[in-house]
């Protein structure tokens, strides 16, 4: 999916700052690059701004300062972000926010239809995406009747159906039971896309990320050195 000739980073963020309307600054001077094939983990405490960072990358929030470059294009406004949104897929923290269509099939089709594919093509894409993720049996089910793990998986299918080059994942395993967590982890490890994975679970990040940064005091820094301690599982 990624043209190997492209040497520019998929995402390049410089000095990004963000604050809620009248609040204290949440992010300040955030700086990182994402290259093809990388899986960047972003760890951090509750309320440290992890989700806001992903929203900024999608152009859903406006930064107070700094720049976001996607695929070499400097993106400032809705107009800049819009044509690139198909190439970046964001998986929301709460799958219920993302699965707004009445049935699984329609939900997965929503993105490709917006991208302008014909109905026949879309039906093919939907069938293929669901089959790839082992979800074909859910196609006709109403979304409001899915279990938590199924919802997360279908939301991922909806994002993947747009054939993005980059995935942004917001706490992809939170609130899932252990089986569903393992399932999602396996799914992610099988995908070719570059990813930014936000999670407060360091164990999960160690499993899936190729490198991990820590978001603390509004900035991204290297993870502190892992100090092994005796701890029972």
């Amino acid at each position, binding site marked *: 999916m990624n043209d190997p000739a492209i040497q520019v980073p998929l995402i390049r963020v410089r000095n990004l700052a963000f604050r809620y309307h009248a609040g204290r600054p949440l992010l300040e001077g955030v700086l990182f690059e994402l290259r093809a094939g990388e899986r960047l983990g972003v760890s951090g405490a509750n309320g440290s701004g992890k989700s806001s960072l992903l929203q900024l990358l999608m152009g859903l929030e406006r930064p107070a300062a700094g720049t976001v470059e996607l695929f070499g294009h400097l993106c400032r406004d809705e107009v800049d972000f819009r044509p690139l949104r198909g190439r970046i897929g964001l998986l929301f923290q709460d799958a219920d926010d993302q699965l707004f269509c009445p049935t699984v099939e329609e939900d997965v089709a929503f*993105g490709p239809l*917006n991208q302008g594919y014909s109905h026949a093509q879309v039906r093919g894409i939907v069938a293929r995406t669901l089959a790839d993720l082992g979800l074909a049996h859910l196609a006709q089910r109403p979304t409001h009747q899915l279990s938590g793990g199924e919802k997360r998986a279908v939301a991922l299918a909806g994002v993947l159906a747009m054939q993005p080059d980059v995935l942004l994942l917001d706490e992809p395993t939170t609130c899932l039971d252990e089986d569903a967590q393992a399932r999602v982890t396996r799914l992610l490890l099988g995908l070719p896309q570059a990813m930014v994975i936000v999670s407060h679970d360091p164990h999960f990040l160690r499993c899936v990320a190729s490198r991990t940064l820590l978001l603390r005091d509004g900035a991204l820094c290297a993870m502190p050195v892992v100090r092994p301690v005796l701890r029972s599982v």
Partner: protein
Amino acid sequence: MTTSVVHPLAHGDSVIHRIDPRVRLLCVLAASVCIAATSRPGPLLAACALAAVLVLVARIPWRPLWRRLRVLNAFMAIVLLTVPFSMQGETIWQAGALGASREGLAQALRIILTGNTLVLLLTSLVATIEPTVLAHALLHLRVPDKLVRILMFAVRYIDVLNDSRLRMDRAMKARGYVARCNAHTVRTSAYLVACLLAQSLDRAARIERAMRCRGWRGQFPVLNHFHAGARDVRFACLFAGALAAAMVMP
């Protein structure tokens, strides 16, 4: 603790469940017009029998059916207690100054019969449609797109919000709350409503973002299509025939 509010009656595979939802909707609409327009007891009784047969064929579980009929007939009891006495006509029963008239009694019975017939029809033919399928059927019946989208969002999120309401309900109960007829109850209910309101508006904002992320440009694409087959046509003809036969009853 999730108990779905939004589910069709009789998750079944009866003959009725397999009929094209558009056909079922049109049948109920046509029948509603005919039944509302008729006032003679013969056709009403026949139509009521037809509706009862459909309820049996659709294998509606008795508990939800009874709940629906109870709601309706609580009101019908008031009709039966008031209308015969307030309508002019030949007195058939005298209780002090109050006289029940034959015309009034006939009118009350007509109302009761009509109401029950229509509710039975709605229950057997329309309430058995999966709500999301119903939304699609409405779209194909030229109901305005925006209205159907509101229906789709509502169907999608009623259970999400209701689960949240039930969880808050339990949390309130766990802290000793008992609903009574007092200011504390009013204030607590208002807190609950305000919470649900804030939750629904926050979620709407997040949904709007999720839609933009997936390239939404203000239109909702439609994927599903219905195909009426021979069975649906047969059902429609049979239903029309039965309805017509009922309407010409003496």
